[in-house]
């Protein structure tokens, strides 16, 4: 069984953020970075070392960090905040809502250790609600890149994007399947595999699981169209509808609650514009727990075998 995308190296997506931030710092002197006592975990050390005047250690005070970032935009700076996804969203939702989103500040909220694949730290840190919270804020761009290269590309793209944005990435070492020069455009879905029987829309780490699932399904004679929806908001409605027109059934995959995530966004598009059978591979209204990333994805139904099963099910529901 051969996957259509392969990898020779695995790396964590957070390192893609760190590399992107450093490069962006060199390109744009207005870029500043703030971190709430997780510089090493967020891979912001290189930026800090290269640009000490433009790096702000905030300590364990995330609410203050969001306010500071909002203020720093006044005068033309572009702040990138760094902490875990849990502390980047739920903990500071009101600060983001009022000082950043409602005030339309050009703050880039960069969030690592999202989802189950954070692993052993357990459910306190494995946020699975952040995409939902952030996409509900008017004017907020939400990006969930899929590997090291795409996280780096997304970070760079945010440097020339204006307005509040949420960038979600993670901790585990993960296959790098996107070529370093693969085009990344905020808001534009990325078609990885052309197919005709079913469309899989995936984001984040689960794009790789979907690549694996496609190989299994291809052997079974099922032609999968795989599209990486790296930008949850603004959603590429046109690309979704164009694919569904052809395949007439859909599976979505994400490392997030079933409520409020990518599946939810796609369901809304389908029910409004083209009612289509849909299966959602996501965490089913539960918290996570300690374990290795692979064990957790398996236990909570996010493995490639779950995607295969969802595809086989949705195909039987085709109208």
């Amino acid at each position, binding site marked *: 069984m051969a996957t259509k995308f392969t990898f020779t190296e695995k790396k964590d997506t957070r390192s893609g953020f760190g590399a992107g931030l450093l490069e962006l710092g060199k390109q744009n002197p207005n870029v*500043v970075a703030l971190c709430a006592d997780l510089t090493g975990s967020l891979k912001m050390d290189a930026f800090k070392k290269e640009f000490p*005047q*433009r790096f*702000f250690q*905030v*300590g364990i*005070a995330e*609410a*203050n*960090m*969001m*306010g*500071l*970032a*909002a*203020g*720093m*935009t*006044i*005068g*033309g*700076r572009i*702040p990138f905040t760094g902490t875990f996804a849990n502390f980047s969203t739920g903990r500071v939702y*009101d*600060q983001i*809502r*009022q*000082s950043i989103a*409602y*005030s*339309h*500040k050009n703050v880039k909220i960069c969030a690592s250790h999202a989802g189950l694949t954070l692993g052993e730290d357990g459910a306190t840190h494995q946020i699975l609600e952040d995409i939902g919270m952030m996409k509900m804020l008017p004017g907020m761009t939400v990006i969930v890149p899929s590997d090291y290269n795409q996280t780096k590309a997304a970070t760079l793209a945010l440097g020339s994007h204006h307005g509040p944005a949420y960038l979600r990435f993670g901790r585990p070492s993960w296959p790098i399947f996107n070529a370093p020069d693969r085009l990344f455009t905020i808001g534009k879905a990325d078609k990885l595999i052309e197919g005709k029987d079913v469309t899989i829309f995936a984001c984040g780490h689960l794009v790789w699981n979907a690549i694996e699932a496609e190989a299994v399904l291809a052997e079974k004679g099922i032609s999968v169209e795989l599209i990486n929806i790296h930008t949850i908001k603004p959603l590429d409605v046109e690309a979704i509808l164009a694919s569904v027109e052809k395949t007439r059934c859909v599976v979505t995959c994400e490392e997030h609650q079933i409520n409020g995530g990518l599946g939810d966004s796609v369901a809304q598009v389908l029910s409004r514009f083209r009612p289509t059978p849909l299966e959602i591979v996501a965490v089913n209204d539960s918290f996570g727990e300690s374990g290795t990333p692979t064990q957790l994805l398996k236990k909570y139904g996010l493995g490639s075998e779950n995607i295969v099963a969802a595809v086989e099910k949705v195909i039987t529901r085709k109208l």
Partner: protein
Amino acid sequence: MMPNPSPSYLKDLASQIRRDIVRMVHGCQSGHPGGSLGCTEFFVALYFKVLQHNNKFNMDGIGEDLFFLSNGHISPVWYATLARAGYFDVKELSTFRQINSRLQGHPATHEHLQGIRVASGSLGQGLSVATGAAQTKKLNGDNKLVYVLMGDGEQQEGQIWEAAMYAAHHQVDNLIATIDYNGQQIDGPVKEIMDLKNLKAKWEAFGWQVLECNGNELEELIVTLEKAKSLTGQGKPILNLMKTEMGNGVDFMMNSHKWHGVAPNDEELKRALAQLTETLGDY
């Protein structure tokens, strides 16, 4: 801006702005007159004497002093001051809190009202924003200052102390914060709701330079703010602990938390306006 307004003109402004506040709140039958009236001298002193600002508003505010209002519910006094300082037409004050207005119940940037740089109202956030803006000024080599006003009830918010710790640690010494120390909050006297104990000692312990003044005495206030300016650039952020009287200028609104967020009826409006001379023309 008028280069050096006379004390009598500043008093006229205060009287007119108080009229504006009471009329605005009466007009929509909602809003917060008490804290607005208590802070009138502060806004007059700031916008007509202390702040180096440009009423041709620019969001980035490069080369000018910036002001942030953290306790956004006292928006009436800010809006009236901005209008009287020429940021927008005073006639617009009549739209306060009404549909399709730029003068939202709490200050917002969303409708592009000149003079507002961040939304406020959910308490505790303004000091963080002001501190960030002050650090950008430093990065930009801009030697102008950043001012922020907070409430005393607002000192109960944890984020205030996160920002207080941060600004001192990072030596944000181009920042002048003021607390409206009127001793009242919605549910009653601050002392009874959640006592702040020794607020001055708290801020000093956090590493700030603390000044005190009576915020309803215009001259004393101006002297204090000038003193605060002279203390900038010395490694410490500055806090002005400003005693005020909620409802100041309208006898029946003073000495109580009752008028924190209540609008006067027609009869009360009449009684209030009788105590406040129309000096510059009502909107």
